[in-house]
């Protein structure tokens, strides 16, 4: 067995592990983007228009705000600004994830893989205990991408055949995934538990308190996450210095 064969095998193993970890994300995405397709149809978009947007954006909140802005006849500037603010959290995630990437992932590869940074893909990749390789991340983003595209396609074409109750319940799959990532980490570390508690508290403030609740969803997530992570880093930094999960 040559070194090259071994490297090839490990790449395949990494890709397959990525595929496996991406499967539940893909299932959740299928249903979320299905509802996006339905929403698009109800706003007067053709099936291929909604699907094209899903294939080129791969983000829920941003796309929903986007098609609503387009349908309402908003300006291109308003559209660009809403995308920037709602998706700004991906910048934060990109910096955070870059700390967990294997050293040998080159610039051009990152420029390609960066397209796949979503809340869920990031959540799985950033909390991985070993460095993230190109093959793993590529595997991780593969099924969610197709789940997102095909979900939109079916949603847009079939319209409202599944009862609303069913699609709503299926959308809990995504939150279940978040819980599967956060709870074990919070159980293991009281510091993480503290950060989670602060994030939940700030997020609830942004949701329920008058004036604050006028803030857009994307921006509310940024404020809650930055406040919680900064307070945690200031009040109780992780013992090992954080950031490196190698």
């Amino acid at each position, binding site marked *: 067995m040559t070194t090259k064969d071994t490297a090839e095998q490990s790449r395949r193993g990494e890709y397959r592990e990525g595929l496996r970890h991406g499967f539940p994300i893909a299932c959740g995405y299928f249903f979320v983007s299905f509802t996006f397709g339905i929403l698009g149809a109800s706003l007067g978009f053709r099936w291929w228009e909604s699907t094209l947007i899903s294939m080129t954006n791969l983000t829920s909140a*941003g796309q929903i705000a986007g098609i609503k802005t387009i349908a309402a006849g908003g300006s291109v500037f308003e559209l660009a600004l809403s995308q920037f603010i709602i998706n700004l959290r*991906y910048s934060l995630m990109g910096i955070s994830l870059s700390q967990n990437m294997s050293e040998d992932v080159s610039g051009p590869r990152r420029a390609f893989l960066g397209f796949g940074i979503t809340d869920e893909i990031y959540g799985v990749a950033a909390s991985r205990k070993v460095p993230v390789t190109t093959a793993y991340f590529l595997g991780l983003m593969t099924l969610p991408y197709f789940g997102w595209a095909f979900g939109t396609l079916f949603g847009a074409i079939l319209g409202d055949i599944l009862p609303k109750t069913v699609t709503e319940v299926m959308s809990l799959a995504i939150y279940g995934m*978040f819980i599967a990532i956060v709870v*074990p980490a*919070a159980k293991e570390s009281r510091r993480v538990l503290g950060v989670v508690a602060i*994030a939940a508290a700030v997020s609830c403030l942004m949701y329920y308190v008058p004036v604050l609740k006028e803030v857009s969803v994307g921006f509310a997530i940024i404020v809650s*996450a930055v406040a919680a992570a900064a307070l945690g880093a200031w009040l109780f930094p*992780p013992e090992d210095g954080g*950031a490196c999960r190698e």
Partner: protein
Amino acid sequence: MSRFFVCAAVMMIVTYLVRAIPFTMFRRKVKNRFFRAFLYYVPYAVLTAMTLPAALYATESLLVAAAGLLTATLLAYRGRGLVVVSLSACGAAFVATLLLRLLP
């Protein structure tokens, strides 16, 4: 060119750049202790902020969502994997929906 294509292109470009620029530019390991700790906490903070309280209102009833989320939390606490936890959240919510329909 139609307005749709211009708008779709704007959405794609802004969303892509917001994602890819920081991810591609940040090549060095961060040395600053505060920033390292901050970045370590960000994923948990983001996922929590997206779940609470939004997930409670994702279904027709607070009870249905709560059933799903509590089941997921319990199973995750007991160390079950991503897929099991995620699908159990849906399963519990389905059962809760049915119970709500059957009960007067």
